[in-house]
């Protein structure tokens, strides 16, 4: 209690129906940032008892809707399209509003009277202090089983563990060609052989849909176009023993969203050497649990909400964007 402050009766105690309202603006365009924002907001919600989370997002990328569906904490969402938006005056909670929001759900969920509003700058790849139990992707059982079936149908052996390898990724065709040459000669064969032959696993290769084909290697399953199927990609990573990528990318956020050990090279250090990759793979295999088969999808652990947040939201243990 602040010194000298005499408290008013707490009107919220024991009134679950009046739990705090969180409104989050998930405005990122890249997949990594979008997922980070989504789960950041969910983690804040987890820290406040009886809270509800409503999100506003822009439905301008095919992955957004499906991945938003893996956030199990959202009470309601508004997906804006084209030039449409909602006005800041939507937070006007008095009578006689000069600017109207003609959406009853906005008021039904008490979004016009939020307790917390999160913008992208507050959620950028960091967890707030006090969030001891970060939110994770939530898979409905039937849905997950169907995607597992898809993975098996594509050739992933359900009885052996696998890792997901994100291949060279670039939006620049020149980089892609140069990277292709280096990757094939420098990394690809040795890495896959190390995982498949030496460690007894499988490699699920993901990446850009336009990546050139790799040479066929037993134990490597190619899902290079999985980026077009965001849920299949997310599911593959969620069930992988670990995730590794050859260039920093937002796909790593899918691993973090499922608490899957991951390795990503620093964006400042250039391409990793084969020796560095081998060392990373060895370390990942060590820290990952000993899975005879596929990883069980992570389940959020019960926890005691702190019922507080600290402004400004500070960096703490959690994601790095």
């Amino acid at each position: 209690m602040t010194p000298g402050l005499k408290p008013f009766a707490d009107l919220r105690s024991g009134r679950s129906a009046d739990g705090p309202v969180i409104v989050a603006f998930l405005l990122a365009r890249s997949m990594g940032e979008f997922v980070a924002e989504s789960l950041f907001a969910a983690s804040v919600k987890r820290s406040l008892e009886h809270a509800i989370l409503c999100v506003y997002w822009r439905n301008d990328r095919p992955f957004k809707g499906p991945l938003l569906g893996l956030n199990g904490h959202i009470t309601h969402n508004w997906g804006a399209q084209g030039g449409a938006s909602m006005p800041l005056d939507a937070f006007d909670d008095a009578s006689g509003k000069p600017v109207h929001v003609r959406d009853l759900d906005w008021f039904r969920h008490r979004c016009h009277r939020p307790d917390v509003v999160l913008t992208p700058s507050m959620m950028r790849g960091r967890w707030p202090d006090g969030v001891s139990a970060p939110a994770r992707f939530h898979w409905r059982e039937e849905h997950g089983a169907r995607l597992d079936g898809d993975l098996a149908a594509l050739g992933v052996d359900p009885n052996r563990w696998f890792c997901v390898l994100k291949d060279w990724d670039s939006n620049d065709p020149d980089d892609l060609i140069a990277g292709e040459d280096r990757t094939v000669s420098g990394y690809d064969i040795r890495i896959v052989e190390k995982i498949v032959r030496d460690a007894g696993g499988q490699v699920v290769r993901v990446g850009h849909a336009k990546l050139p084909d790799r040479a066929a290697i037993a134990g490597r399953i190619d899902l290079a176009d999985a980026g077009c199927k965001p849920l299949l990609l997310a599911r593959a990573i969620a069930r992988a023993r670990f995730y590794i990528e050859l260039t920093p990318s937002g796909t790593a956020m899918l691993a973090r969203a499922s608490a899957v050990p991951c390795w990503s090279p620093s964006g400042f250090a250039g391409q990793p050497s084969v020796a560095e990759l081998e060392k990373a793979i060895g370390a990942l295999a060590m820290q990952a649990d000993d899975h005879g088969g596929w990883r069980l999808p992570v389940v959020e652990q019960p926890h005691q909400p702190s019922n507080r947040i600290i402004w400004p939201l500070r960096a703490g243990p959690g994601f790095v964007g």
Partner: protein
Amino acid sequence: MSLREGHAIERDTDNPRLAVGASADNPCIIVALMLARTLGDFIDHQLFAASTALLFEHSRLFVYYRDDRPYKSRIVAMNPYVTRAWAMLEKDTFPFDGFDDRPGAPVGVDEEDWARLGCRSPHILLTPSMMQRAMLPAFPNSARFAIPNDQIRGLDQRLLDAGLRPDRWFCVLHYREPTFGPRGAESDRDIDPSYPIAMTDHIIRHLGGQVVRIGHPGMRAFPARSGFVDLAGEEDPGFLHAHAVSRARFFYELSPSGPAHFAWAFGTPAVRCNAIQGWGPLEESSMVVLKQFRDRSGNQIPLDWIINDEMLVRASTRTYREARGIFLTPNSLDELRRAARDILARTADCLAWRRPVEQVRVPPPNSFEWPLQRGYRHHIMAYWDSSTQDVEGVV
């Protein structure tokens, strides 16, 4: 290169110099949506946002408001903590996507300053529902308004020209009348106009002060007399009402109404009478005097019951009172007189026009826990029977 799990990283702001608000290079950016229409709410929201800014050594406060009342732009001008304000006219508005701070935003705010000053990337976004007045006393440093420097001399002269003596103290008197604009009558807040006239007489004749009335044009006329100045008739008071409050020994509010919020905005002690809720002033010397709370049998409800129950917060709702069998009776003239004597005693250090006093501030913590506590620092009083009740025992 680093090896890391999905959920474990190094902290990158363990260095206190990098903490938000700790340096001029990294100020805490606060965007406040001031969407209230009523005077009192608008003032309180300004104070809340400014007090939030004072929690940081370095901050920038940006205000988004709708310029639909003649007083709003002046109030923004009296808030010295505002870095930049955006005044919306008519149906103008900014979109939610104004907080998209990455390149290539498909929808945004068409104002260069919005992006240039960092408003797209706030650390804190305050909405009206977050800026709760019951949280205002929890701030370790309460923000104050300031009359623009270039206005002060002229406003002092206007008070002199209106007939105020500069060598004697005065109080500002205000109450609600049912003739106020489109909002009309509110039986819980309007009072019998004969009471303010009687109290003006009491303050001038028995307490030795002067009285300045503020309010809206069209309020009931008072008898002209020495020591009484009526500013309620000003069609366009500009900063005059606010300035009068800043110079007053105390603010004497006979029924809850917006202009009283100027008192806590300037640090002028206030007494709020005929109150049906506990919140109000921010000064510890200030007082809230409740109406008489009675049960169905007509018995007075003890003050400590009211204080410790939710009725202090909820009693303004008629349905709540009816459900609980609570009846309210306005303060009597005797109660109003006793309240005036008490606030006079609490302001004994101010014997002429009030001068701004530099506040003693605690070091900004550069962070705060949310939600803030809801509470009060003033005294909640009741003069319902022969003995004064004050839960703090300070009378």
